[in-house]
């Protein structure tokens, strides 16, 4: 990281924000590099070595199936982060496009799109995921698809509000007069100008989606139990707590909390600073 | 003439991005009972902060040095309850933007009676009666209707009058007016100024009038102080100011203002940008923009010194005004 980038980040996010960003980056890196990391096969069952205490072979010990807890946590980050990432990317892409169209076209289009946001907003993420599970059967894909839809209005409403302000700015009229196309103006000017806000909202959405997916895993409506996933690990380890083996639930629970907290911090910092700067300008 | 308010060596620093930054460098100023003093400066010069320091109305974490004495009592060392009583009964303030400075959720009546009931402990009915009187006093017709309205239903000028009425409700001896007319249109401006003048006259009120408008200050106030980069650079009788500005900055300000008397094709502008106290260079803060600046001006910081009937902080003041008013001596201290 170049010093100037570091100081810019620092100014933008504050020390806590930078720490949170570092946490997200570390977790993301862990997920990407999981196959290269020196951890065991997370699905390797060894019934002769269940609930093993930490050792050189199993730094975090093993679970009720004799699987390596560290490996499951590391590989679990892939599912635990990929799901919310998909939700965030899809919801952001769709939400931003709809919001920009609504704010640009106004009138009838705006009315229909805003009403769509209202309707989807009426279905909280978990509820929509449950309905989808009832229709097509439970599973990771169904849960991610449902949440992707459910979070569209969360991005869309914020973006629409901000884009509406941009569209009314004189520079947009000026560009329009110069003969730039609507798409070009929106893509090159409007969206980048509200970009920070979108990033902030997307970051927070990521955190919420992570919690929702973990909750669905907990309900047994998310990922398959054999697939390593933080939410599923917490759920699977729950009955071991009483037997005196709280490890896996504890570790996975802490990872979820840390990841979500980091997202919330970064998201809030970005939008806080944006508002702050906006006021100063 | 007894000084009602005496500011001596006032220095204010406020925290900004983790550091303390000086916004008022050195202010010495006194206001006599019943006297009105204008405090003129560009935005960022520290004039508003000076007025707030008089009420100790500073942002959290601000550091204040020097002395602010009201009627001989040290404001900066008042206990919280003394301070509240001082603010409630002796010194009042009106602000630039009456809309932002009134609670949008409360009615005009609430706003006016609030002070009377909380500070003066008037019963509800009496407070309302008094509020009506106050509104009439600031020239508002049908006070009854106004009392039940919300600030957003009133025009800016009307609202500023309400502010003035509220400020005067406790019968203060000092009024701090922070650009009270800047946000208003010209005609309203004149009306509000007229009301202020009339009330001041009637109530024998001292006033510190903050403005960026030198002419307005000069027209309204007995004396005018000019601030630049957190410090007072000149204090003079308003009557003398226009023709005999002592400080090069004042002189430039006078020149930059169009006047009905002078017709110029193009207004002279002051080169460079105004700076805040913490941005001020070594030496005279105005030196980089000053047409009279000499090398020594950037090395040595001038202090306020009497010259003629005023005081000025300029190293070359005597040199530039050789006709001098030194003979008069004993001028008011700034």
């Amino acid at each position, binding site marked *: 990281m170049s010093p100037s980038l570091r100081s810019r980040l620092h100014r933008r996010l504050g020390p806590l924000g930078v720490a949170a960003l570092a946490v997200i980056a570390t977790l993301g890196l862990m997920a990407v590099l999981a196959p290269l990391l020196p951890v065991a096969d997370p699905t390797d069952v060894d019934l002769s070595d269940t609930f093993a205490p930490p050792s050189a072979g199993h730094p975090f010990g093993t679970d009720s199936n004799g699987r390596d807890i560290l490996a499951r946590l590391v590989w679990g980050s892939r599912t635990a982060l990929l799901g919310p990432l998909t939700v965030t990317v899809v919801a952001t892409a769709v939400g931003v496009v709809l919001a920009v169209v609504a704010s640009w076209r106004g009138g009838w289009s705006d009315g229909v799109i805003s009403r769509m946001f209202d309707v989807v907003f009426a279905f909280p993420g978990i509820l929509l995921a449950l309905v989808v599970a009832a229709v097509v059967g439970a599973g990771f894909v169904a849960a991610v698809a449902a949440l992707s839809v459910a979070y569209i209005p969360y991005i869309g409403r914020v973006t629409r509000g901000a884009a509406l302000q941009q569209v009314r700015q004189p520079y947009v009229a000026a560009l329009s007069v110069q003969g730039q196309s609507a798409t070009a103006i929106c893509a090159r000017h409007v969206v980048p100008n509200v970009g920070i806000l979108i990033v902030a909202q997307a970051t927070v959405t990521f955190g919420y989606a992570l919690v929702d997916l973990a909750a669905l895993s907990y309900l047994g409506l998310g990922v398959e139990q054999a697939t390593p996933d933080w939410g599923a690990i917490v759920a699977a380890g729950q009955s071991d707590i009483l037997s005196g083996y709280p490890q896996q*639930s504890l570790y996975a629970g802490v990872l979820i909390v840390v990841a979500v907290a980091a997202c919330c911090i970064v998201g809030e910092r970005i939008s806080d600073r944006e508002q702050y700067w906006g006021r100063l300008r | 003439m007894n000084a009602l308010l005496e500011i001596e060596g006032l220095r204010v620093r406020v925290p900004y991005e983790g550091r303390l930054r000086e916004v008022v460098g050195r202010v010495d100023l006194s206001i006599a009972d019943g006297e009105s003093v204008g405090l003129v400066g560009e935005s960022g010069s520290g004039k508003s902060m000076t007025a707030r320091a008089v009420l100790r109305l500073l942002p959290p974490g601000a550091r204040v040095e020097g002395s602010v004495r009201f009627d001989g009592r040290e404001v900066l060392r008042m206990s919280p309850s003394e301070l509240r009583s001082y603010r409630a009964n002796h010194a009042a303030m009106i602000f630039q933007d009456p809309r932002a400075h009134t609670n949008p959720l409360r009615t005009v009546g609430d706003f006016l009676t609030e002070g009377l009931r909380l500070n003066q402990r008037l019963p509800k009915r009496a407070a309302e009666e008094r509020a009506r009187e106050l509104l009439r006093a600031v020239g508002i017709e049908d006070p009854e209707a106004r009392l039940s309205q919300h600030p957003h239903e009133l025009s800016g000028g009307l609202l500023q009058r309400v502010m003035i009425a509220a400020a005067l409700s406790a019968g203060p001896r000092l009024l701090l007016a922070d650009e009270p007319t800047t946000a208003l249109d010209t005609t309203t401006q004149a009306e509000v100024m007229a009301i202020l003048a009339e009330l001041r006259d009637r109530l024998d009120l001292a006033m510190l009038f903050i403005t960026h408008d030198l002419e307005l200050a000069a027209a309204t106030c007995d004396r005018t102080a000019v601030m630049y980069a957190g410090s007072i650079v000149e204090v003079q009788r308003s009557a003398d100011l226009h023709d005999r500005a002592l400080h090069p900055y004042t002189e430039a300000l006078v020149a930059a203002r169009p006047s009905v008397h002078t017709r110029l094709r193009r207004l002279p502008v002051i080169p460079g940008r105004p700076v805040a106290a913490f941005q001020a260079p070594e030496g005279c803060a105005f030196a980089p923009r000053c047409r009279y600046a000499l090398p020594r001006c950037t090395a040595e910081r001038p202090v306020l010194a009497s010259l003629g009937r005023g005081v000025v902080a300029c190293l070359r003041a005597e040199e530039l005004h050789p006709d001098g008013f030194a003979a008069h001596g004993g001028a008011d201290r700034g």
Partner: protein
Amino acid sequence: MPRFLVTRLVGLAMTLVVSSFLIFWSLYLAPGDPIATLSGGGTLPPEAIQALSRQYHLDDPFFTRYAAWLGDVVRGDLGESFVFNAEVADLIATRVGTTVLLVAMASVLIVGVGVTLGVVAGIRGGLLDKGLLLTTVIGQAVPSFVAAIVLIWLFAVQLRWFPAIGSGEGFAGRLQHLTLPAIALALAYLAYVARITRAATRDEMAREHVETARARGFSPSQIARRHVLRNAMIPIATVSALTVAGLLATTVVVERAFNLGGLGSLLVEAVVRKDFAVVQAVSLILVTAFVVVNNLVDLVYVVLDPRVELGAAR
């Protein structure tokens, strides 16, 4: 004011109609025959199939079916569950109390504790504020099921202060049984509301009109009471109401963790048993509650903020 109300009510009605349509339509997205979907996959005697066809008007055109279904629902006839062998309305009636009480208790916690903490931190500032900020940023990130696991372990199993499962009997019993679930449900939202409240309070504290109040010599408590809180209440009320409305969907997880027989556990049960009639009815209720609570906020605006009086729809 009436215009404002009418606009909101029309919007509310439209949202509800479209939502109910989506819920109804989802049945037809399920792979296979609606009869099979509705019966939960089991083989039904011909009589039951006839009853199903009648109940769901399966022989009518699609929109007629929807209208008939909606009509039944509005009249309180939620159909029959072939998986649970019971009227859907009865299934819901026996469970709704638990969920409502749980949500109510969590709401009291969120609004009571969350807002109080936020206000105190926002006004007092200093170390308390910093501590709260750090606690809430973590609290906000604790999923309800994680909170539930910890609470059960600590307060039910180790300390035995509260029961570990069930919703209890009698009002006192219910309160006692639902205390831990309510805390688990409320925790993250409480933290969130506390943060928002703190921010709103601080924003309001920095407002110019508060400076006026200070300049007029009012005491800090007078200022907080008369100027800061009332004004900060607008964003706080919005966020609180949204949060409370959202709770209805989140109880699903907590009801499972504490083994409570509420609407949420009924919904999950119906989902895994593929009992479509129940899924539709419960989702419709949850969505309606969410939308209505949400729209109530807009009415709260009118009460709290004189400026929106004639503002029509936002």
